[in-house]
């Protein structure tokens, strides 16, 4: 649903999800503790658990590509720490009118 307009360009509202997790090379003691509990509960097939952060960002952009670029910039500069963390971005267009 298109609703915004800046200098004649229609803007679309997106809901971006940024999932931040520790790099694979970095030990995740929380994930390890949760995994051990799951195994102790009887979920013996669990081999690995990684903990992370799930960040939802609503933003306007002219298209999905621009929204994705903006989210990647946010992730690089603030949402994830490049020394220890990695991130994955997903996007959906949301039907909000105003």
């Amino acid at each position, binding site marked *: 649903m298109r609703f915004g307009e800046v200098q004649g360009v229609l803007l679309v509202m997106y809901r971006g999800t940024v999932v931040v997790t520790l790099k694979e090379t*970095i*030990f995740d*003691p929380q994930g390890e503790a949760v995994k051990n509990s799951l195994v102790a509960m009887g979920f013996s097939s669990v081999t690995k658990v990684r903990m992370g952060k799930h960040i939802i960002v609503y933003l306007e952009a002219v298209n999905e590509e621009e929204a994705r670029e903006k989210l990647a910039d946010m992730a690089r500069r603030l*949402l994830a*720490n490049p*020394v*220890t963390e990695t991130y994955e971005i997903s996007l959906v267009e949301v039907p909000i009118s105003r």
Partner: protein
Amino acid sequence: MTVRFGVVVFPGSNCDSDVYHVIRDVLGQPVDYVWHEETDVSKYQCIVLPGGFSYGDYLRPGALARFSPVMRGVEEYAHDGGLVLGICNGFQILLESGLLPGAMLPNDCLEFRCGWVNLRVDNVDTPFTLEYRRGEVVRMPIAHHEGNYVLDKDLLEALQRRGGITFTYVDESGRATKESNPNGALLNIAGIVNERGNVLGMMPHPERCSEDVLGGEDGLRVFKSVVRYYG
């Protein structure tokens, strides 16, 4: 010799008063609080980023403080050679801002660690450690949840080679053992200094051990060193 200190106050700083007290009442030097919305810190001869939970430690410790207005001024100040001391959360802010290399992870024990540690002073050629002897073991308190220092292997080797490691968690005899490491930090690192030597970050709290009545004076020498540096 008069050395003017500035103690930055972020929303959530909680060691600012301790640092202020030590500088004014114990060290006898002029000191101001610097509110996080100020942008020019150039009139000070040493800026201290104190411990606490700036911005509630939201996202990651130091991650939001790094973008506060005062940090633009502090970054400029550091690039001009100004002395910056980051203690605990202040150290985490220096890492997030890139003024020091590396990052902090939650303590490997997953607990908030609060207590006294033994530290070996590995580099006494910084403006913050002139009052120590190389290899000396001192005692200071720690109080943190994210002090598990990490750095990429290549950068870690470079840090080690140039003497960037300033304080190391050790046992009483000065050995960096697994048991003496309170948080899992690489190489038992407790404090580091940048290449130029004007920016130092440390997890232990020197301001909490600057008077005998509080259990020790080993921390006061960090502040005394700064005065001696200018003298």
